[in-house]
């Protein structure tokens, strides 16, 4: 998942974690009293400890969960790759485009040469014939695109280990000359059973057919997932008239199907010395696993992005918990300091306590994360089971180690940081729980002088010298010098390496440095002027000026950073800078910087931001005091409010980003019914054309008991190779666009919903009436619209038209089982020229850029909402024939990218097709009645039209097969988004409950002043609501901006994901409502706790 492999980071992490624990142990050994004081708190209050551990374990849990899900998916994807290839690891073939025949005896020499290698388990010379047409005479079903395999089982080893569904061995040698095995895939498509009679058709024996009997249905061995049949090798050689020849030699490596991949390189190298020059080795399984892993990369990227955010949210939560913990004990720590402990001791004490929580949290977090991962996998498993995706929870041991060590180290560092920051206290103020006074100001020269003086005494007072130099360094940072220098250096480095992240971070440092420098300069000038004019009053005036400068600089720095990181990632290129490059981490940093920038600008000025709310609440009668106090606490504790706000904003932000990615993935992949356009079965005659709907009805009969008994609607479609010109277009010339002659339910609009109608048509029905009855009237899908026109109609455009759409039927185009060109060509009754034509067009249009330049694009046709001007087109069949005039009267919605084309009636295209041979194939679509079984209906149809070779495909199965892994991805992302929100709620509840403890005295004071329980509870609820609303608004806005940037630079397109941004407004609204409700719900427990505080106890509380 991470860019560095798990193996590489596991050991360094273990070493770091052990070192960290060892250092802690050493410190505890040197000062055992500090360790005792720190650890004593761990066991004191069990509920509090449990809450803290829960908060701390979240980051570890997120990491563990992501790793678990990633491991599971990786294994599943690899297993799918292996499953597709059977036990074949290496494939030896002759050089050339199509596998050439060679002498089967070469297989013996290969087997002899590899016989001494322990990593090879079997060698099998094999003869393969693709694109067979298989007809099951018993079940009366037909299926094309089947591969026939015959292999020599004598030294095949695991390659010959075919098994039946019951696990019984089914050796290839047991096949009689008239028998064959079917693999599971083809058996399912043919509904075949052992004993069925199978007839084989192939372009290799035109006009002939051969009958066989199914001996059994098998898996394993040389048989993978794609449709295949196994015949005795001599029989297949005889059918192909290639006695003694084969065209493949399969090699199976030792180990199981997956682990054997590791030996592929060794086996290939060994084979290089053995094979004759005309043969070479393809490491098919290794390639398959690599390809599958690369395809999974997109998922890994999304998961990595999520993990980064989740880890950061977890760390922020840890920080907040510790800040609250220290705040709760401020008075106690003040006493400890007064008794003589130094700040370093306090930090160490807190660190010991934190380490206690940390060790427990990391262990529990790993278990929790694995549990969550299992939960996510279990949640999506039912969907995945439908597509045969072998999903089983799988966690690599190194993932557990990585999660534990990462959680431990990150938490420890965060605790140390929080302890160090919180331990900075004035003893007197801490003991009396008063606000921390501002730190004494000293100019740079004074600090430098002090540091130089203490350096002379470094032998005796090393810590003083260190502290003095630290103050100098801090002064250099706060005056902007360090950020400016660091920023300039980073930016300069980045310009050389074109690293986007480095450059952006450098620029951010420069922004911060510049503002800080301005602030320092302005304060110096103001201070000098005030001292000269106001004398003694200058101190308070300078304090006011400093406050103002702090507010202004926060707005400037935070605002500028949020604004910069919100810019599109190629924005700098528009200003003439080189195009920077970066990975997923850029988006993570951008997200964090956007949120922090916004909160940074807002938090110091939150009192000002809340002032209008206060004014608005003036008229609320008695409750106004409650409301005012609810606003005072967040405004007073700005740092803590800022951290809380950041936390909640990030939770909302991540939820919004994940929801958008999930919606985009769902739109692209998870819309099976929409992609099938409401139809259930697609079919095509592979032997002889049926000739249209009337002939289909005649062949099937319309009776209730016939094959059409369960069919609601039937449509036909015939793709035509057309050139199109729009004479009124700006650049009027012949262009390409898919054209389909349709009939039946298509002409009633079933499966072709309209997005716009031409003027003069009152309803969709009127449009379809025109298409049916007016030759020349057609509709066209929305992909043909120019972007401006699509935007004017508020239509979401699909991906651009691709080569497959030109030869495919209009619905569910691109599915392998539906547009199997080879099968079509082998069986097509069209003249050979038509096949050449297909090939020529396919070659020309296979380049997306060329295709895009030559694709029809309708411009300026939209005249109003949902209305277009009737648009004239002319079309010609590219095989010849007259031009026909077409009039576009409607736009078909094609958001899912499955309805490309110009659709017209047979009467429309008749003049252009007169005298031409039928092009391609006829496609038939069937919509099955509600409640009827699509598979059984498909079987009935195939059986009834067996004489035409009617191959039926259940669309849902085919679409699931094609998009299954992507569906899985979208489901997991949705699961993660929901989980983020839930965890965010839990985090708020934890922090809210800590806040009650810290403010126990304050609550008691309010109760003593006359505030009722309800008032106290209201105060807590309102405070939480305030953070909830502000965080939701920030998260929503920034999340949408990041998503826009993420998709604008086609980040996911690098992985050919086909994802386009979809903003799921309804889901986002639900997230916002859920987040606000979550903020209220999360405060219910603290509010209830606060209401229960007894005034007398609370006031005495220490």
């Amino acid at each position, binding site marked *: 998942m991470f860019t560095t492999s798990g193996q590489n980071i596991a050991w360094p992490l273990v070493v770091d974690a052990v070192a960290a624990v060892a250092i802690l142990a050493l410190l505890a050994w040197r000062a055992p009293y500090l360790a005792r004081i720190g650890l004593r708190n761990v066991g004191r209050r069990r509920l509090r400890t449990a809450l803290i551990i829960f908060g701390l374990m979240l980051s570890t849990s997120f990491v563990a969960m992501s790793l678990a899900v990633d491991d599971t998916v990786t294994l599943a994807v690899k297993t799918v790759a292996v499953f597709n290839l059977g036990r074949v690891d290496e494939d030896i073939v002759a050089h050339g485009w199509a596998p050439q025949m060679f002498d089967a005896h070469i297989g013996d020499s290969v087997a002899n040469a590899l016989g001494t290698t322990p990593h090879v388990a079997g060698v099998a010379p094999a003869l393969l014939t693709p694109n067979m047409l298989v007809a099951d005479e018993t079940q009366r079903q037909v299926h094309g695109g089947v591969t026939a395999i015959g292999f020599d089982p004598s030294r095949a080893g695991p390659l010959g280990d075919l098994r039946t569904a019951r696990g019984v061995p089914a050796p290839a040698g047991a096949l009689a000359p008239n028998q064959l095995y079917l693999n599971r895939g083809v058996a399912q498509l043919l509904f075949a059973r052992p004993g069925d009679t199978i007839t084989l058709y192939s372009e290799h024996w035109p006009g002939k057919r051969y009958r066989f009997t199914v001996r059994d249905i098998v898996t394993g061995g040389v048989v993978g997932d794609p449709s295949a049949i196994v015949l005795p090798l001599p029989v297949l050689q005889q059918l192909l008239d290639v006695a003694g020849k084969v065209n493949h030699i399969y090699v199976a490596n030792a180990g199981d199907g997956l682990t054997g991949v590791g030996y592929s390189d060794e086996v290939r190298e060994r084979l290089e010395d053995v094979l004759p020059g005309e043969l070479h080795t393809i490491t098919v399984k290794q390639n398959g696993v690599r390809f599958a892993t690369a395809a999974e990369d997109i998922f890994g990227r999304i998961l990595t992005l999520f993990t980064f955010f989740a880890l950061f949210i977890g760390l922020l939560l840890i920080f907040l918990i510790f800040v609250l913990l220290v705040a709760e004990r401020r008075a106690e720590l003040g006493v400890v300091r007064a008794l003589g402990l130094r700040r370093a001791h306090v930090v160490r004490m807190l660190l010991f306590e934190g380490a206690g929580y940390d060790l427990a949290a990391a262990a529990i977090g790993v278990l929790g994360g694995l549990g969550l991962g299992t939960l996510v996998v279990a949640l999506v498993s039912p969907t995945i089971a439908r597509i045969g995706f072998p999903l089983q929870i799988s966690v690599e041991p190194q993932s557990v180690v990585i999660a534990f060590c990462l959680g431990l180290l990150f938490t420890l560092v965060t605790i140390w940081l929080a302890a160090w920051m919180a331990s900075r206290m004035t003893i007197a103020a801490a003991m009396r729980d008063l606000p921390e006074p501002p730190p004494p100001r000293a100019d740079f020269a004074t600090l430098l002088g002090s540091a130089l003086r203490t350096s002379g005494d470094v032998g005796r007072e090393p810590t003083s010298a260190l502290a003095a130099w630290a103050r100098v360094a801090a002064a250099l940072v706060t005056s902007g010098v360090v950020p400016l220098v660091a920023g300039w250096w980073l930016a300069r480095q980045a310009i050389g390496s074109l690293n986007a992240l480095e450059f952006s971070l450098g620029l951010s440092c420069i922004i911060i440095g510049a503002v800080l420098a301005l602030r320092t300069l302005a304060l110096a000038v103001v201070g000098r002027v005030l001292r000269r004019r106001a004398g003694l009053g200058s101190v308070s005036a300078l304090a006011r000026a400093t406050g103002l400068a702090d507010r202004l600089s926060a707005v400037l720095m935070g605002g500028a950073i949020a604004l910069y990181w919100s810019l599109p990632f190629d924005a700098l290129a528009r200003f003439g800078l080189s195009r920077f490059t970066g990975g997923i981490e850029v988006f993570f940093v951008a997200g964090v910087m956007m949120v922090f920038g916004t909160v940074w600008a807002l938090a110091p000025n939150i009192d000002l931001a809340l002032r209008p709310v206060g004014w608005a609440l003036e008229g609320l009668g008695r409750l106004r005091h409650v409301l005012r106090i609810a606003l005072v606490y967040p405004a007073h504790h700005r740092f803590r409010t800022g951290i809380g706000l950041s936390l909640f904003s990030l939770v909302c932000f991540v939820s919004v980003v994940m929801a958008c990615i999930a919606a985009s993935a769902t739109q692209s992949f998870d819309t099976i019914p929409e992609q099938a356009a409401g139809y259930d079965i697609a079919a095509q005659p592979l032997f002889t054309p049926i000739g249209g709907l009337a002939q289909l009805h005649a062949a099937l009969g319309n009776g209730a008991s016939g094959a059409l008994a369960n069919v609601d609607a039937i449509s036909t479609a015939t793709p035509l190779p057309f050139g199109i010109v729009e004479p009124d277009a700006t650049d009027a010339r*012949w262009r390409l666009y898919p054209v389909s002659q349709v009939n039946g339910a298509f002409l009633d609009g079933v499966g072709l919903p309209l997005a716009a109608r031409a003027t003069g048509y009152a309803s969709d029905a009127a449009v379809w009436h025109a298409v049916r009855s007016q030759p020349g009237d057609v509709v066209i899908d929305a992909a043909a619209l120019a972007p401006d026109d699509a935007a004017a109609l508020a239509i979401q455009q699909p991906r651009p038209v691709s080569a497959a759409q030109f030869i495919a039927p209009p619905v569910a185009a691109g599915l392998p089982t539906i547009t199997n060109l080879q099968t079509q060509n082998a069986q097509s009754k069209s003249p050979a020229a038509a096949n050449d*034509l297909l090939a020529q067009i396919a*070659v020309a249009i296979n*380049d997306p850029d060329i295709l895009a330049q030559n694709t029809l694009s309708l411009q300026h046709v939209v005249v109003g909402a949902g209305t277009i001007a009737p648009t004239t087109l*002319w079309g010609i069949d590219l095989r010849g024939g007259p031009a026909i005039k077409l009039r576009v009267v409607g736009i078909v919605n094609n958001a899912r990218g499955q309805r490309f084309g110009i659709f017209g009636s047979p009467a429309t295209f008749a003049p252009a097709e007169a005298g031409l041979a039928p092009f391609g194939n006829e496609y038939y679509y069937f919509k099955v009645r509600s409640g009827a079984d699509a598979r059984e209906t498909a079987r009935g149809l195939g059986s009834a039209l067996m004489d035409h070779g009617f191959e039926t495909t259940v669309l849902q199965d085919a679409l699931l097969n094609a998009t299954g892994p992507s569906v899985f991805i979208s489901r997991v992302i949705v699961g993660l988004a929901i989980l983020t929100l839930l965890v965010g709620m839990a985090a708020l509840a934890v922090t809210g409950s800590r806040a009650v403890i810290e403010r126990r005295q304050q609550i008691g004071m309010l109760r003593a002043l006359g505030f009722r329980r309800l008032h106290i509870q209201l105060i807590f609820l309102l405070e939480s609501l305030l953070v909830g609303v502000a965080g939701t608004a920030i998260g929503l806005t920034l999340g949408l901006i990041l998503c826009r940037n993420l998709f604008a630079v086609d980040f996911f397109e690098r992985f050919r994901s086909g994802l386009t941004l979809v903003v799921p407004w309804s889901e986002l609204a639900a997230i916002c409502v859920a987040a606000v409700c979550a903020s209220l719900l999360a405060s219910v427990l603290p509010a209830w706790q606060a209401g229960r505080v007894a005034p007398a106890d609370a006031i005495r509380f220490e």
Partner: protein
Amino acid sequence: MITRLLSRLPRKRALPRSLGLAVCLSACLAVWACSGPGSRPGATSTLPVAGGAARVGATATPHPFTYVALGASDAYGIGTDDPQADNWPTVLALQLGVGTHLVNLGVPGTTLKQALTAQLPVAVDAHPDVVTVWLAVNDLLAGVPLATYTQELDSAVATLRDRTGARVYVGNVPDLALLPRLSGVSPTELGAQIARWNQTIAGVCTAHGAHVVDLFTDWSELAAHPEYVSTDGFHPSTVGAQRLAAIFAAAIRQTPAK
């Protein structure tokens, strides 16, 4: 004799008729894929067309001046660096003025007979002001009988003149012997054949009030400008397309609208 000679040539229409359009379109797209953006010289000067808006028999159209190009691969832009922008009708349209609306119906590999059914109806429907027709070379090389060609050309020009009232400019057959691809053909026999075809073209044009663009004469400068022919030795290059456009533009300029 000439027919036998021509039959041995790598003719432009060497593929079956049914495949011609698609294969040439494919080839064109492939050429396009290989070509860079290319420069587009010659696209700057414009030629004012008198009476551009005065069209006869036009129905309502949003375009002030419509120019339709009937043609073959040269009109489509095969041989040029950027077929979409460098084809000669596009260059000519730019010279005809800013408001000119071009409908380029050029289809690679087409003959006049195919154009009668595939291009002519579109041209008539576009209500053009000016039409250029250069559809002779493919027919000549394909061995179409002159009588058949004459009949088809007569039909095409008559239809254009009668049904649109547009000014029609018909390009005749240039001296094909100057083309590298036809270097093996006897120039004398080819010249005689071309002369007969051009005489026929001139006759048809005169009969219907169309104008002949004498490419045989004007394109003879090809001998001194080998760069006018693309690397395939047959189609005009980008520079050649500009020169062709200039020749047609000159013809149009000489015969302003009445």
